[in-house]
């Protein structure tokens, strides 16, 4: 029926995660996001299955598709074997493909996420990496992390890691040939294109907001201004 809906159904996560929803609410009942955000996974799935392009477009530009934590608790309980969490992933995917993600405050955070996480994978072969984990960005890591950051080599050695070392072990330096293969995989399977698209749309948005790339990063990482909480 709708073009956006058809595009969504190309995603294997929609094929797997959306049969007919009966609106029973078992997903929302235990959803960690539904209690704290203006978020109801049941309603999102219902909008998608309505196949209404106008509504789906609104959804792709909305804050709500970014509230899910992808814990997949919904999948355990759905009596129709649906996975609202997988539906969300497909929506996010399409929102980024079409550049709609920059229309929402939470969607704009993809810029920072791509920089941090995809950056770590390409540079080091890890999703998170001690050298890039800064106490100033992670005050919750406590005074302990400040100490670790200041004594990183010693702390990791004492804890049996092989930080930047040769051969196997925790936090070893992953050989360049393997990082090259990861890069090839990124290029070949759309991850590089994804990063480029996120950057392109984000920089357009940054210009519109009158922010430099660094300011934009800082802004999306640290600030939210809209009311996202469900009171």
């Amino acid at each position: 029926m709708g073009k956006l809906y058809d595009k969504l159904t190309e995603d294997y996560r929609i094929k797997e995660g959306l049969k007919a929803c009966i609106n029973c609410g078992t997903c929302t009942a235990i959803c960690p996001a539904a209690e704290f955000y203006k978020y109801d996974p049941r309603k999102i799935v219902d909008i998608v299955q309505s196949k209404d392009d106008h509504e789906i477009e609104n959804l792709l530009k909305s804050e709500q598709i970014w509230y899910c934590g992808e814990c997949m608790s919904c999948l355990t309980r759905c009596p129709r074997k649906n996975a609202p969490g997988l539906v969300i992933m497909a929506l996010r995917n399409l929102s980024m493909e079409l550049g709609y993600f920059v229309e929402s405050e939470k969607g704009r955070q993809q810029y920072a996420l791509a920089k941090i996480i995809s950056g770590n994978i390409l540079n080091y072969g890890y999703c998170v990496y001690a050298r890039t984990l800064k106490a100033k960005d992670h005050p919750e890591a406590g005074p302990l992390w400040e100490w670790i950051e200041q004594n990183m080599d010693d702390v990791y050695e004492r804890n049996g890691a092989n930080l930047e070392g040769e051969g196997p072990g925790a936090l070893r330096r992953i050989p360049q040939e393997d990082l090259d293969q990861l890069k090839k995989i990124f290029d070949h399977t759309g991850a590089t294109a994804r990063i480029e698209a996120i950057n392109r749309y984000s920089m357009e948005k940054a210009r519109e907001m009158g922010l430099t790339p660094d300011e934009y990063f800082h802004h999306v990482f640290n600030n939210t201004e809209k009311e996202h909480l469900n009171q």
Partner: protein
Amino acid sequence: MKNIVVIGGGPSGMEASAQLHKMGYNVILVEKSPALGGHLAKWDRLFPQGVHAGNILEGMISNINGVKYFLNANVQSINALGKSYNVILDNGITVLADAVLFATGFDLFKAEKKEEYGYGIYEHVITNADLENWFRTKNDQRIVENPKRIGFVHCVGSRDEKAGNRYCSKVCCATAVKQACEIKQEFPGAEVFCFYMDLRMFGRGYEDLYLSAQKEYGVRFIRGRVSEVAENINKELVVKAEDTLSGKPLKVTIDLLVLMSGMQNCSAGVKVAGQIGVAGMENDGFFETKDSIYSLQQALKPGVFFAGACTGPKTLPDSLHEARAAALAIHTYLQARDHQ
């Protein structure tokens, strides 16, 4: 005289036997348990008007006067022999039956399979059948004195692909509303909640039952399927659902939770039927009838008939209608067979 074997001594089996006996057939009724009555014997009162199950059952038993029946008896083997069926019971009796009627009824869905509801794990979670038993005997330690809050969960093992049962069990909504009113009679001070997805109050008098549950008994209906039940340190139950009408997650702590277990085709019946190639349908496990509108009492195999819940969830009156229809269908079949 023609022999007819009726398998299952619940309401449909008894009613069909009584009718066939009156028509002059030699009926052999086989019941696997020690008493007649099936699930009816375990029930206290019946919706919509609260008639006592015991009174109905008494009438049925007196009505089968003259029918030969065997209790504690199982069909050991059954096989086609020309146009008849050779039925051997485990008590040594063998019958060459001109027709076989499956009135094997249903098994209650095993509520412990819905692990997230904690039946058999949390002390104060019971089923609809457990509650009927308590209404009759007042003996169940899981039911505390003067509960403050009581919940009913509709669709347990029904409308649930994960539980393997996609279909609606038809009678649970009315049963839940009936039981909600009855428990409110027992504990007038308790708050009672029904968690439902759709209220299927389809029969005569059912909608009135619903209305009276709301207005006379103050039962609160929450549209949302229960997602999780947990036990707190006081052994109370923490129930989570979405109030889908307001779109918000909801939590309530209760003292007693009643799971409305749905119906499944009787596994013992399926085993017997399998010996003569009569099987449950892929989509729901209930026996396949000759068609879905006109010949509901006939199996695909000639000489094999059905009555009651073995072909899908049914109310008690539905099952009794089917029992009479099955008796007539058998009679028509045997007359036509003799003409050939």
